[in-house]
């Protein structure tokens, strides 16, 4: 069954027809060409597919696209504004908070959601909020420092 959905993706009003059983990640990557978010585990465990839905982190791999009808979706492509990288992106580069980069879009968006909710989180609060994002290259210390810098800690 097909359904038309209307949502804002990175601030742009978007209307698209999807299959009701399609996942949001697939629509964002394959229909909209926004390939920052990645597929890995497919069961909400790893966080590489993280998207912000109305400002909150969700697993694109496990959210039906029809469920995003009427929502605001932010992907990593929408993080920079007017050619200016987001402070988190600058900090990730400064601290070398990535190697292969597969997990990076998910970490950036999750960290953004955290800072929007709680601009000056403690180390403990950062660890807890990001506990569901995995980095198989093991850049956790650098990721921590980058986020702490933006959090003013």
């Amino acid at each position, binding site marked *: *069954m097909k*359904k038309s959905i209307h949502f804002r993706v990175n601030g742009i009003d978007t209307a698209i027809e999807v*299959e*009701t*059983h399609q*996942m949001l990640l697939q629509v964002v990557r394959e229909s909209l060409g926004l390939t920052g978010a990645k597929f890995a585990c*497919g*069961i*909400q*465990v790893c*966080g590489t597919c*993280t998207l912000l*839905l109305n400002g*909150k*982190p*969700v*697993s694109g791999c*496990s*959210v*039906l696209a*029809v*469920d995003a009808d009427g929502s605001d979706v932010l992907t990593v492509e929408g993080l920079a504004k007017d050619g200016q990288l987001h402070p988190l992106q600058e900090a990730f580069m400064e601290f070398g908070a990535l190697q292969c980069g597969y997990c990076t879009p998910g970490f950036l968006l*999750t960290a953004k*959601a*955290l800072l929007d*909710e709680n601009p000056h989180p403690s180390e403990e609060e950062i660890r*807890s*909020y*990001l*506990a*569901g*994002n995995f980095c198989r290259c093991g850049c956790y210390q650098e990721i921590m420092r980058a986020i702490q810098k933006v959090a003013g800690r």
Partner: protein
Amino acid sequence: MKPFEYLEPTTVSEACALLKKGGGEARVFAGGALMTILMKEGLLEPKTLINIKRISGLKGIDFHPQEGLAIGALVTHHELETSGIVKEKLPILCAVEKDVANIRVRSMATVGGNLASGEPLTDLPQVFIALDARIKIASSSGERVMPLEDLYVDYYQTRLAGDEIVTQVIVPPVPERTGIEYIRFSSSSVVDKPCVGVATRISLGPQRLCQTVRIVLGCVGPTPLRAKKAEALVAGKPLDPKLAEEAGAVATGECSPVSDLRGSERYKRAVVGVLVRRALAQAYESASRS
């Protein structure tokens, strides 16, 4: 995933009518945390999916001094975790939520779905049962209220009929001098589902005797389960370390864990004993302090 018909009712009665019409082929869809996995794996292939998220009446958290806390079925884990009123009235719920799954699941998945799924490896049922919570259930023929404890039948099986929807969880006001504790043990990573979860509540009577005792074990049987023999052992007495230890030992015999990747049956029983002992001691202490 198999294609399905997708519907978005905006009222509870509309949703119940659609469920009834769908017979066994229509399913409620809330946060989708469990549903999407089951459907992707082909373990569940509903003909009709009834997304209840557009029903505004199922959202929000209220507090009434007599009734207690009323939590809408669509309240997400993260909303419960960060709710001001919950933090004030029942901070234990916020603390429990911090360790549920990860932030993405907590942002999407709902309290109603967590309780109604009958999933064995969850945290909320044992905590709500320890608080004597009731659930409100709507169907195409009316409404009923049931103690949460009575909802569960077996793994993934509840007493909900095919056209019934959980609409609210009601937590009655907690008596004075009550201590509530939840200890969740995770045998791999913190974001994994729990291996064992033990909730305890002690409400004190005169002379610091344990008047009401709840010991609820999660993840160690087909359903969350009250360790009633252990509760009876403690009731009417003051708690000391020896009694807490004995209650733990009794509780280990009341559950029926199965060996899996989170631990062997014997190991889980041992964990139950330790957690019951600790959770009782902590609940007793905080009840005595309050």
